[in-house]
């Protein structure tokens, strides 16, 4: 299947996530307006970052003077899963020029990567993920704009829990990932347990992430050794 056809397949396949991204985008627009960010700034944020959980995390610290270091670190931590998503796609983006990969990686997105694992081998993964990303980007931008536009209507509601939308997005990704993967869940369970333990003993955020992912990787390696003798 050509890159173009694969991109079209990505666009066609994103129906569910197009709608859910739209819903989260509306919530982000409302939350951004509540944080005092004006329309074009919020739209610029959505267009340039293109990450629901990272943008919600940034809003947590959106007060004058902006704590740039804290904002950058929180966005980096929440977005660090992109490093792992990128690593997971290493074997799947072959056959494209370096320039194309560098530019198109801008549209790397969780649901596109997760759903690409269950595709036939002949689908071009970079085309698919990029097509998926283009469609999700359209949903994200239009819904951010809609959320900003209707924010006034929601002023009377208590939106304190809306910042939990980020973890909800990640939970849907995790469930989709788990259901579409042939892997055993052991590494993920190990990561979750280690993260909880480290969190309980007041470990700093970035260490919780690094150590628990490392524990999951070790569990995965042990699993591989057992399966292949």
């Amino acid at each position: 299947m050509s890159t173009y056809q694969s991109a079209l397949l990505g666009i066609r396949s994103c129906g569910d996530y197009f709608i859910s991204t739209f819903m989260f985008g509306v919530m982000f627009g409302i939350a951004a307006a509540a944080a005092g960010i004006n329309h074009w700034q919020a739209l610029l944020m959505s267009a340039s970052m293109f990450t629901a959980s990272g943008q919600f995390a940034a809003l947590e610290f959106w007060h004058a003077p902006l704590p740039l270091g804290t904002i950058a670190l929180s966005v980096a931590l929440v977005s660090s899963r992109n490093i792992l998503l990128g690593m997971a796609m290493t074997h799947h983006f072959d056959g494209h020029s370096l320039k194309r990969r560098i530019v198109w990686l801008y549209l790397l997105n969780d649901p596109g990567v997760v759903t690409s694992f269950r595709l036939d081998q002949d689908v071009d993964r970079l085309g698919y993920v990029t097509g998926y990303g283009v469609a999700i980007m359209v949903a994200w931008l239009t819904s951010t704009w809609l959320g900003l536009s209707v924010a006034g209507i929601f002023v009377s509601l208590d939106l304190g829990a809306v910042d939990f939308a980020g973890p909800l997005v990640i939970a849907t990704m995790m469930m989709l990932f788990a259901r579409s993967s042939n892997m055993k869940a052991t590494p993920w369970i190990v990561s979750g347990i280690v993260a909880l333990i480290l969190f309980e003993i007041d470990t700093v955020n970035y260490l919780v992430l690094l150590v628990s992912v490392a524990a999951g990787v070790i569990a995965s390696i042990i699993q591989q050794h057992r399966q292949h003798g």
Partner: protein
Amino acid sequence: MVDQESTLIAIALMAAVVYLTRMGGYFIGLQLRHIAGIKPVLEALPGCAFMAILAPAVRQGNIIEITAMACVVLSMWRFNNVVIATGVGMAVLIFGGSF
């Protein structure tokens, strides 16, 4: 109120950070790909990262947030439909505070 210059600097900084994570992982993976048996390990990584973020978030959550998370997980388990799961979760988050 945050001034415009600070806002633009913050947006540029955040966009750069996010793009670096997207590109960085891929190029780190390119360096590691020749290690035998690395592929299944790399493909387990996103799930590990999701769980490492989710577990502390749920632990810190209040009753509404935990209920919303439970609804999302159960909806995904039962229907495997992102729209239903997201809709139910967001409804609990938005309207849960009223009860």
